[in-house]
């Protein structure tokens, strides 16, 4: 930035709308602070002018209202009871902690991350004294809803397994998942909820999210619908990633690479309402998914070198309809015999 020859009078009107000047006054950006401190050193005759603008912005900053998280949560519960017409009902309350990621910037995010590291360490230390553990296993074609002792619910998708204690202890609520599930976690800051999978650990306060970690898939994913979660990865750096609502973490189990994408909520959790959604999904993933849902074996013949994709949504009640829909769009024929499905592409 060119400071030395900046001798022009910066007017009050210009200063108060300059974003770097505002950053300086609000202490939100070190570069801006350096710039304006230097600028002031070089242009001492502008001191009064600068102070007027600064005082105005500080006055404006002082007009901001910060309502406490507790108060906002109280208002949110009140809203829920009004719309449900049931006084005191406290379901589905999204924890407010997520605001920290947006509102107060990096400092707070960093603090949250540190908190999780500590929390996770304590968890591993205490885990050896675990209480009676129950397991729920769903077969292919089977789904199940589990209510945990704290009132949280888990909808377990096909071909999955959840290990959970009969009673949660007084510190951390820990469950282990293989496969896919949607979690609706009861909010409780004092007892963080942790989902362990082989590759990633997810820690939440109270929230709704979907985790998919099928062993025969190369990727694990976590999709956050509401609230806030921290995901601890099993990569070399033991990265910890914070997700915002409608963000999806994709973790490659072999390369240990990860990325965050956005998603449409219906696409991800449609399965819990009996919907299967494909979005430019390659045929081999579609057949794997169908095999899990309907407990069948699908063979494709003459698939050729060109990858086939499908985009669309199905009700998961009727395999025949899904296969016929897919084959119609792929211009293929099919045959269903008991547990075996053959899809034949035209040569």
């Amino acid at each position, binding site marked *: 930035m060119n400071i030395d020859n900046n001798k022009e009078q910066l007017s009050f009107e210009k200063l108060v709308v300059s974003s770097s000047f505002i950053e300086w006054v609000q202490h939100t950006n070190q570069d801006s602070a350096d710039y304006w401190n230097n600028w002031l050193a070089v242009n001492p005759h502008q001191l009064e002018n600068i102070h007027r603008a600064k005082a105005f*912005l500080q006055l404006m900053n002082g007009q901001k*209202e910060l309502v406490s998280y507790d108060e906002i949560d109280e208002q949110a519960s009140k809203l829920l009871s009004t719309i449900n017409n049931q006084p005191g009902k406290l379901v589905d309350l999204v924890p407010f902690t997520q605001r920290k990621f947006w509102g107060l910037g990096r400092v707070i995010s960093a603090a949250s991350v540190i908190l999780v590291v500590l929390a996770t360490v304590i968890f591993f230390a205490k885990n050896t004294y675990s209480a009676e553990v129950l397991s729920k296993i769903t077969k292919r074609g089977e789904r199940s809803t589990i209510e945990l002792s704290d009132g949280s619910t888990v909808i377990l998708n096909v071909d999955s397994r959840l290990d959970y204690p009969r009673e949660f202890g007084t510190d951390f609520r820990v469950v282990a998942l293989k496969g896919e599930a949607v979690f609706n976690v009861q909010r409780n800051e004092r007892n963080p909820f942790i989902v362990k999978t082989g590759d990633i650990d997810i820690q939440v306060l109270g929230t709704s999210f979907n985790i998919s970690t099928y062993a025969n898939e190369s990727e694990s994913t976590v999709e956050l619908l509401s609230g806030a979660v921290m995901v601890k990865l099993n990569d070399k750096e033991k990265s910890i990633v914070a997700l915002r609502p409608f*963000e999806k973490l994709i973790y490659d189990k072999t390369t240990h690479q990860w990325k965050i994408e956005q998603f449409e909520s219906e696409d991800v959790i449609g399965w819990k309402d009996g919907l299967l959604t494909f979005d430019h999904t390659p045929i081999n993933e579609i057949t794997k998914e169908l095999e899990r849902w309907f407990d069948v074996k699908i063979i494709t013949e003459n698939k050729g070198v060109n990858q086939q994709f499908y985009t669309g949504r199905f009700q998961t009640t009727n395999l025949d309809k899904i296969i016929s829909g897919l084959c119609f769009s792929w211009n293929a024929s099919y045959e269903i015999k008991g547990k075996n499905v053959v899809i034949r592409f035209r040569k």
Partner: protein
Amino acid sequence: MNQYKVDNHLWQLLKAGHETALVSLMQFHYNALYGYGLKISKDVEKTKDAIQNLFTYLWWKRDSLGEVKQVKSYLMTALRHELIKQYHKEGHAIALNVEIEQEPDISFTAEEQLIHTEHLIFKREILVNAVNSLPKRQKEIIYLKFVAELDSEAIATIMGLKIQSIYNLLSEALKTLKTLISTHQVLG
């Protein structure tokens, strides 16, 4: 993902009947709505009630909600209407010839510790009085621009004015302020 996109997702979910989306929208925007509402109504309970009414209304009307460009400015506009409506209900226009208030009158306040800079103490009363002496519309623009930190398009939506009017009024307001405060010395 930025707040703007999150808002739009939540808006779609709200229209589809998800309670959590309604609650999230309230949580995300509570500070902004409360701050603005308090400036208009000057009453904590009235402001909280108006915010409750606003979101309850959104829930009952969820099936007929249209698309909105910016959820935040939509919410602030709705709150402004709600508070002005309440103001009339309470019979502030008792005498028949009293002109109906269409614009809120925002007043700025100052806390002692806020307005002193490194070496100089600015006479805070002068500054606050200067801002408060501006016409109602200009004060509201100053609030929405510098406190709510909204862009001119959003401010235009909320106040029901054209963008060009916002630019003009803002520039007028800042010029007036500059004149008002530069006649006073910054005190050492």
